[in-house]
């Protein structure tokens, strides 16, 4: 009997756990250790943040699902991983009691999601004396909602407020979530009748509007090429949203965001309400060898993301021409029974063009690995573990340079007059060898459109994915 431990129960970890439980749960021991005892459908926190969805609609308890799937669940935060052969275990701290729990493993899937590195930008975030809001955790999204509604009340009384939404660190990712938030704020302000009292500014580290950390998307439309930059700029212009890109936030004070841009200029932007996505880092777990020494260099990179079967250390230009440098099995090269899924794995580099300004500040949108990509990697990793146990060799591989991704960015949740941008992109990481065009992607598959159908898609995704993640009948049919 093998022991498989999954750290984390987000999109990647929970997907991995469900596949492992369904294929191995009866004969082997599958354990999930997560510091949250609920599954959280994070994409809908955008709506929580504007008060359009109740927080409890975005979560459900994990244990009942895992009980049905022959998965053991431990509500604990993993603090240590001991990966050396002969004595492999993780140490966690139970959420309710703080008591230490030790769990041995034969196979380990590391999928704890990101550490939200608010500390990377002084003054960022809602905690610890910070001055900005966040929708990256449920308590934060609820707090953002309350602050946003308070801002609405001020505007209803005639006050004019400046709202700055975007990324809060030169190396941040998840621009898509911030984009959804600024558009939903715009739509809500219009509905509340206070849009004229709000100045909205999109502030981001992207090279251009619509970059989203994936070097933008190009689509063919009526015989002409359309880029996501043109598309999103048109939306911003139509909605009266100003934008400032190529900008890295370096510090936040009360009412003031300090930044540096590509040209090395330093400036400040005043704000009354702000939601800025922080930098993501790997979770700060310790990796301890048999002799008690630190073996983190064999498992994680400097940012705490798990090294996998990618080729690291390539320059951007070389990486761009070698899409096979992206990992495919997500297996750690030093410990072949350790896998990483979702945001936890270390990408070999950015997808968007990185930039270091004349002051030496690197302003570079990090590659997104959330949503559909997370789920696909979770499935690949789970099936590889199943393979190793049942066949002795892996048979599942999928690089981000092979993966298709669909993204539906909400632009107002109303099923009557809401909207969303629906994007299909293949592959996620451009491959100029397979697709020798300017974008390195399949122009017959790439798609981008906006309309109320997108709002229906987004609504449907919420409920179908909640169904899938509860492992209800037919859950495997729903694609990740």
């Amino acid at each position, binding site marked *: 009997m093998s022991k498989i431990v999954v750290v984390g129960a987000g999109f990647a970890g929970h997907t991995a756990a469900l596949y492992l439980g369904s294929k191995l749960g009866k004969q082997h021991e599958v354990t999930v250790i997560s510091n949250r005892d609920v599954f959280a459908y994070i994409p809908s926190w955008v709506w929580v943040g504007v008060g359009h969805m109740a927080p409890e609609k975005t979560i459900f308890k994990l244990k009942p699902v895992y009980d049905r799937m022959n998965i053991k669940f431990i509500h604990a935060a993993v603090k240590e991983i001991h990966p050396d052969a002969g004595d492999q275990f993780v140490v966690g701290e139970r959420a309710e009691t703080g008591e230490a729990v030790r769990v041995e493993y034969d196979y380990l899937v590391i999928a704890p999601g990101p550490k939200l590195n608010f500390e990377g930008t002084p003054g960022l975030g809602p905690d610890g004396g910070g001055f900005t809001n966040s929708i990256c955790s449920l308590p934060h999204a609820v707090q953002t909602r309350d602050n946003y509604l308070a801002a609405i009340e001020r505007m209803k009384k005639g006050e004019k407020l400046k709202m700055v939404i975007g990324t809060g660190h030169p190396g941040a990712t998840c621009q898509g979530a911030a984009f959804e938030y600024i558009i939903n704020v715009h739509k809500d302000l219009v509905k509340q009748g206070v849009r004229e009292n709000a100045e909205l500014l999109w502030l981001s580290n992207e090279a251009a509007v619509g970059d989203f950390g994936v070097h933008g998307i190009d689509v*063919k*439309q009526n*015989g*002409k*090429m*359309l*880029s996501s930059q*043109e*598309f999103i*700029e*048109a*939306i911003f*212009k*139509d909605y009266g949203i100003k934008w400032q890109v190529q900008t890295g936030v370096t510090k936040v004070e009360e009412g003031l965001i300090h930044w540096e841009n590509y040209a090395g200029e330093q400036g400040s932007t005043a704000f009354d309400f702000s939601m800025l996505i922080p930098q993501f880092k790997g979770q700060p777990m310790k990796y301890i060898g048999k002799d008690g020494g630190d073996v983190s260099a064999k498992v994680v990179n400097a940012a705490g993301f798990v090294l996998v*079967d990618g*080729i690291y*250390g*390539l*320059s951007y*230009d*070389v990486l761009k*021409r*070698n899409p*096979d*440098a992206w990992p495919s099995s997500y297996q750690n*090269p030093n410990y072949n029974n350790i896998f990483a899924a979702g945001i936890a794995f270390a990408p070999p580099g950015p997808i968007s063009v990185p930039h270091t300004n004349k002051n030496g500040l690197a302003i570079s949108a990090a590659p997104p690995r959330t949503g559909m990509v997370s789920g*696909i990697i979770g*499935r*690949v990793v789970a*099936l590889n573990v199943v393979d190793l146990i049942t066949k002795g060799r892996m048979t*599942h*591989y*999928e690089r981000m340079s*092979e*993966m*298709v991704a*669909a993204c539906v960015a909400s632009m107002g949740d109303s099923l009557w*007059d809401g*909207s969303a941008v*629906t994007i*299909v992109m*293949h*592959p996620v990481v451009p491959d*100029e*060898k397979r697709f*020798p*065009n*300017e974008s*390195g992607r399949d122009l017959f*598959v790439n*798609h981008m*459109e*906006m*309309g*109320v*159908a*997108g709002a*229906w*898609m987004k609504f449907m995704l919420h409920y179908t994915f909640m169904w899938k993640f509860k492992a209800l009948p037919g859950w495997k049919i729903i*694609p990740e």
Partner: protein
Amino acid sequence: MESIEPFFKSFGTVIPDFAYVPMSRDIGIQRRLVMEITPKDKFWMNFKLYQLWRFIVLNLKILKAVDHSKRS
């Protein structure tokens, strides 16, 4: 072009036989459609019958793309 052979060799991967394909900016398609959201666009974006059709098409596109990409 930097040689990436040592990296592939060290991981035991077969070195692919490829030539660097320069990015082509001329693919016979006019570049840079300047986009503006017109009132006509807004009409179609909210015309329910048409959008119901788009909802079906989008679902089929996504399902086809998922099937089209490498099923791991």
